[in-house]
């Protein structure tokens, strides 16, 4: 589904991603871990098409197409969803109205009929239950005045409604209390299917108890320095990133 080859990207003159290779097959969940500033959000941003990141080398193929040639909204309509580490606030724009417009943009692209307000409300009712979303949040402006946890939950709620084929979750667990963490994990797991994949960026093994990954990668200074199965996350939790870095130096 997703094939990243020797991806190098920079912001201004600063090179942040220094040659990433990663293959995510359909149905797989990959966890990406790594110290602060190692480039995890940058990788997520490059995949979603954020303009400030300039790709200087490498390629990204998604469903057999050149992903980097697409505009951000085209990527989204093709099924790429980014749950933001820091969701932005958009004053005055109703949350439900926004999501309906987003869903219809995706549906239109897929050649499906657009939903009217009634159909949309019927659709989101179930998803709201799944994510234990407060009805009141739907009629408020996007993320405005939401608590940190509410913002994260709203991201996953949007994901549940949009049903992406490749979901990228950037530290969705940060700032969630333990109950919310379970709810969010449920939301992600409900989407797991042989047709969908996910890249889950996190600092904590805890999330991976609920969203069990097929692979774990460690990013450090813009490179994937280690990949393994779900045990790798446990090992990291135990020994910290220093362990990998020393291991690397020794090698």
């Amino acid at each position, binding site marked *: 589904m997703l094939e990243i080859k020797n991806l190098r990207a920079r912001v201004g003159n600063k090179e942040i991603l220094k040659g990433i290779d990663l293959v995510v097959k359909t149905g797989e969940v990959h966890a990406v871990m790594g110290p602060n500033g190692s480039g995890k959000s940058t990788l997520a941003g490059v995949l979603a*098409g954020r303009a*400030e990141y300039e790709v200087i080398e490498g390629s990204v193929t998604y469903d057999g197409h050149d992903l980097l040639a697409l505009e*951000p909204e085209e990527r989204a309509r093709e099924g790429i969803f980014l749950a933001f580490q820091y969701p932005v606030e*958009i004053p*005055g724009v109703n949350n439900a109205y*926004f999501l309906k417009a987003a869903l219809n*943009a995706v549906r239109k692209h897929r050649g499906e009929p657009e939903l009217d307000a009634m159909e949309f409300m019927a659709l989101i009712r179930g998803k709201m239950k799944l994510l234990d979303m407060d009805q009141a949040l739907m009629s408020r402006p996007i993320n405005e005045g939401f608590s940190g946890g509410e913002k994260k939950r709203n991201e996953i709620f949007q994901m549940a409604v949009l049903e992406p084929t490749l979901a990228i979750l950037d530290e969705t667990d940060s700032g969630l209390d333990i109950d919310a963490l379970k709810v969010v994990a449920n939301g992600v797991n409900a989407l797991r299917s042989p047709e969908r994949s996910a890249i889950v960026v996190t600092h904590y093994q805890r999330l991976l108890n609920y969203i069990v990954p097929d692979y774990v990668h460690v990013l450090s200074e813009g490179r994937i320095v280690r990949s393994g199965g779900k045990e790798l996350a446990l090992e990291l939790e135990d020994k910290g990133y220093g362990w990998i870095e020393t291991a690397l130096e020794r090698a």
Partner: protein
Amino acid sequence: MSTETRTIEELATQEYKYGFVTDVEADTVPRGLNEDTIRQISARKGEPEWLLEWRLRSYRTWLTLRDPDWANVKHDPIDYQDIIYYSAPRRPKTLKSLDEMDPEIRKTFEKLGIPVEEQKALAGVAVDAVFDSVSVATTFKGKLAELGIIFCSFSDAVREHPELVRQYLGSVVPYSDNFYAALNSAVFSDGSFCYVPKGVRCPMELSTYFRINAQNTGQFERTLIVADEGARVSYLEGCTAPMRDENQLHAAVVELVALEGATIKYSTVQNWYPGDKNGKGGIFNFVTKRGHCRGANSKITWTQVETGSAITWKYPSCILQGDNSVGEFYSVAVTNNYQQADTGTKMIHLGKNTRSTIVSKGISAGHGQNTYRGMVKIGKNASNARNYSQCDSLLIGDQCGAHTFPYIEVKNTSSQMEHEASTSKIGEDQIFYCRQRGLSTEDAVNMIVSGFCKEVFRELPMEFAVEAQKLLGVSLEGSVG
């Protein structure tokens, strides 16, 4: 060049392409302005002596006044002797079908969602039986007449209801009020007149049906609306379709009179030609609009969405004389490219327990300059007067400007004033967030801007609000990304 600019330019050349009938000269007074021109205008319109006298007094006052120079706008001096002050409405040649219409213009109309029949009328296509505006207008007028409501052109009102016109004309905006009001009073061409009798609620939004017919009122328009005791009326002015006019200067006067317990709601959506991408051409819109809450418990609401004009100079105001009277002003003003807007309101509290609300939303993009200028005056007898003002500015890009000048004058200590102001920018982050969810940049900007203007759109009659929202989108097209 963006599609929008191209569309407008196409539009600009369009009227020229249609060509005008050649015998126009016969019904035009010579260029320039003097007492003789005014006598000619008045004579051609068959006006009574008192009105001619009033025009002449206005003219003599105008001669003593100067162009206002306090507004935050820049333009070359206007040569008032180089204007033709009266010409009979010019009729563009009719087209056989919409297929003959410029495809670019059609696209704009479609984007704005203007119904096909209306498009035809706007484009000068001969209308068929389905949309016989004359018969629609006739049924409509019949219904109003049953209720005793007078709604007609200003010239008709002068002929058919001279006593009403004479009683109220200039009673809210005296001809000596300001330079442009004096000019308008001297040379006004035509406009609308409306009188709603005691206790009558006008059952429909006025002027929706007349949008097309009422367009050719010229550059010095005059509107007078009187709501008698307990009457209610909602009036819509303007049109979302881009309007091009060969007259650069537009100086209208609108007067509203609300007697005891009366309510007047006046909504405007204006989309005059704003000039090209470099700021050339475009309409100067210098308007004086004022409402007088003359009786107790009366209410006047101004709602405006201004996207057009090269320069807008406009302060719809309320004189709150009656006790417990209410004045409201809701405004969205957009300036893109090189447009300049200096707009706002005056709320003059004279009566007791009078209340006013001001909500102003300024949107600047490109090199646009947007100024809010507001004045709240609390007179010494206005005990317990209250005002709430909110002025928000939204900037798109970093070459535009937003300015706020709120003036306050309080002569009664029991009054309460509240003022809030904010300036925000549409962030790249917000747009990226929307695009990541599948929305185009254009849709993202539209959504953010509409969210910003929500409190004003809510005040517009439903179908007008939908059009206004689309219009905003079209006006800001290409301003981001």
